[in-house]
C-alpha cells in the first residue's frame, strides 16, 4: 500500500543552526502520526517542510508518491496545513473566511458548497459563523481554523499543536474531530508537546529531540519498551538517556 508520507534523511539548516537533523519516518494511510518533543526540538520545522512552506536543506519527502520539491503544487492539492497559533482574516465573518478558503481549493460552486457544509459541521459555531472573526474567542478561532483545514477532506492533514492553549472542552472536541477524520480516510501528521493528548490520539509516535528522531513506535509499544506508565515517562526516560550520552 502506498505510504501517505515518507520522509528520508531530512535535514533543515538555518545558517549555522541545524533545526532538523537527518530524520526519517513514514505514515501509512488513515494513520495518525504524532511528533512529540519539547519546544525547539524541530517539530514545527518538520511540519512546515511537509506542508511545502519551507524547503528541505537535504533529504527527500514523498506525499502519496509525489516528490515534495518537484511536485509541490500537486502536493498542495491533497494536503491541508494548520500552523501553530495560526490566525484568520479578522475582518471577515467566519462563514466568509471558510467560503474564501474553499474557493482556493475548488473550481465549482457545488464543490465549494460541499466543503462549506462539511466545515460548518466541524466548526460547530452555528450562528456565530455570521459574526466577524475578531469577535471570536481563541477556542472558536481554533475550531474555525481546524474546519478550514479539513473541509476539503485532504488526504494528509498536517496539524501543528492543534489544541495548544485551549481549554479542556475545546481540546476534547478537537481531539474527537481528528480521531473521526482518520476514520473517514484521512491521514494525519500532528505535533504536540502534550504527551497525554498524543497517547489518546495517535496510532504512531515519533519522539524528536534536538532535531533528531530518537524513537518511533506505537504508544503501547513505547510504554512497554521503556516500562513506563505513560508517554510522558517514556519521553523523560529517552531524553535523559540521550542527554547522558
Amino acid at each position, binding site marked *: 500500500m502506498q505510504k501517505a508520507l515518507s520522509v528520508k534523511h531530512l535535514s533543515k*539548516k*538555518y*545558517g*549555522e543552526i541545524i533545526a532538523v537533523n537527518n530524520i526519517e519516518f513514514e505514515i501509512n494511510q488513515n494513520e495518525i502520526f504524532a511528533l512529540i518533543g519539547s519546544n525547539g526540538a524541530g517539530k514545527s520545522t518538520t511540519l*512546515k517542510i511537509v*506542508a*511545502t*512552506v*519551507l*524547503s*528541505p*536543506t537535504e533529504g527527500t519527502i514523498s506525499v502519496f508518491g509525489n516528490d*515534495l*520539491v518537484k511536485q*509541490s*503544487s500537486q502536493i*498542495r*492539492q491533497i*494536503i*491541508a*496545513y*494548520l*500552523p501553530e*497559533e*495560526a*490566525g*484568520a*482574516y*479578522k475582518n471577515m465573518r467566519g462563514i466568509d473566511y471558510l467560503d474564501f*478558503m474553499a474557493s*482556493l*481549493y475548488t473550481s465549482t460552486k457545488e464543490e465549494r458548497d460541499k466543503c462549506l457544509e462539511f466545515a460548518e459541521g466541524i466548526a460547530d459555531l452555528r450562528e456565530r459563523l455570521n459574526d466577524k472573526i475578531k469577535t471570536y474567542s481563541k477556542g472558536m478561532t481554533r475550531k474555525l*481554523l481546524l474546519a*478550514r483545514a479539513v473541509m476539503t477532506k485532504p488526504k494528509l492533514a498536517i496539524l501543528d499543536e492543534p489544541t495548544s492553549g485551549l481549554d479542556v472542552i475545546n481540546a476534547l472536541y478537537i481531539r474527537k474531530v481528528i480521531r473521526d477524520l482518520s476514520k473517514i480516510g484521512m491521514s494525519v501528521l500532528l505535533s504536540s508537546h502534550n504527551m497525554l493528548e498524543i497517547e489518546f490520539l495517535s496510532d504512531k509516535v515519533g519522539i524528536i529531540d534536538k532535531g533528531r528522531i530518537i524513537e518511533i513506535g506505537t504508544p503501547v509499544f513505547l510504554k512497554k519498551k521503556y516500562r513506563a506508565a505513560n508517554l510522558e515517562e517514556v519521553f523523560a526516560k529517552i531524553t535523559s538517556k540521550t542527554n547522558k550520552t
Partner: protein
Amino acid sequence: MKKFFMLFKKELRELLSPQVIVPFFAMTFLFFSIGKFIGSETKNQEKEVTVAILDLDESQTTNSFVEIIKQNNYKVDYYKDAPTEEIITQIKENGEKFLIVFPEATEENLRKNKQQEIKVYSVFHSLSLFNNIDSGITTQIPAILNEYLSSQLIQANVSSIDQIFLKNPITPNNFVILKDKITNVDPTSIISHLYSQTLFIPIVLFLVISLASQLVAGAIATEKENKTLETLLSTPINRKLIVAAKLLAAGTVSLVMAILYLIGIQSYTSGITGESQNSVKTEGIKQALESLNLTLGFTDFVLLGACLFLGILVALSIAFIIGSFAEDTKSSQALTTPLMIVVLIPYLLTMLFDINQFAVPLRIFIYAIPFTHTFTAANNIFLQRYDLVIYGIIYVLALVCICIYFASKIFTSEKILTMEIGFKKKKKENHTI
C-alpha cells in the same frame, strides 16, 4: 521619581530604535541638502537675469531706457538694426529668457504724448518653477520705464497731459515663445494656469506612490503578523497569483484614494482662484496654450498614462520586496520610509527645477531614480522631449520587470518567511518550492 525616570528611560530606548533613527537622519539630511541646493539655485536666478534689448529706434530716449534697466541690476544684451526673428533665435541659443523690442519712432511718439507699445518676449526653456520664477520681469521692466517717464513728465510740469498717458507712457505687448511657437499672451497667466493644472500630477503621483507602497508592504506584514501567510502559502494557489493580487489590490485602492484627493484639491484650488468665474480669461489662455502646443493629444495621454502606471508599478514592486523583510506592520512602516525619501527627491527637484540643466553626474543620479521619469513625464511631453519620455518608459519598464521577478522569487521560495533585516550573516539557501 526614580521609578518614573526608569520608565522614561525604557520608553526612550523602545522608541529610539535604529529603524526610527536612520530614516529621521536621512530625512533631515535630505531636506538640508535640498534647502542648500534651492538656496544656491535661487541666488543663481537672482544673479543671472539677462535681458536682451533690440533697439530699433536708436534714440536718446531708448538709450536712457537701457541705462535705467542696467541701473536696476539687469544685465543687458544690446542689439540694434536686426530683424526680431534673428534676435529671438540668438537669445534662444544663448539660453536667455527675455527680449524687449523698442520699435522705431519710440522717442517721437513719446514726445507727442502718445502711448508707446513695446514688445516683450518671454522664452520658456522649461516649465519648472524656478526656471520661470523671474517671469515677473515682463511687467517689472515696463513698470520701471513708466515710473521714469512719469516722473520726468511731472517734473516738466506739463498741464495738458492725458492722465492715462501720464500713468503708463509705455504699454507692454507680451509674447511667449516655446520651442518654435510664438503667441501673444501674458507669460505669468500661462505659468499660473499651467501650474494650477500640472502641479496636480506630481502631488497625486506622490500620494499614490506613497499610499500604494505602504499598503502593499503593510499587506504582507499583516499576513505575517496575523499568522495567515503560512496558511496561504500551503494552499494550491499559484504564488505568483498571490503576488499579482496583492500588487493590483494595493494599486487600485491607492488610485481610488488619489482620485478622491485630486477631486478635493481641485475643488479647493478652483475655489481659491475662482477660475470658473473668469471663463473669458480662461478661454483666452486655453487658446494660447493650444497655439504653444501646451495641450495633450491622444498619444501624449497614452505616454503620460504609461509613465504614471509604470511609476506606480515600480513603487509597488519595490515596496513588495521591502515588505517581505518586515516582521510586522510597525516594522513595515519603518522599512518603507527610505522608499518615501527616494520618491521625495525627484518629487521636489522636478517640481522646482529643470533637471536637464543640472551637471551631468547629478542628472544621472536623479534620472537613475525611476520615479523621476514619472514626475518629469508631463513637462517633457509638453516640451516635446519625447526621447526622454521613451527612454524613461524603457528604463522603468526594465526595472519593473526586475523588481517583479525578484518579488515573485521571494514569494515562491521560503524567503518570504525567513527573510529579515539583521546584522548576522546567514548562509544562503536557494531551494524553490
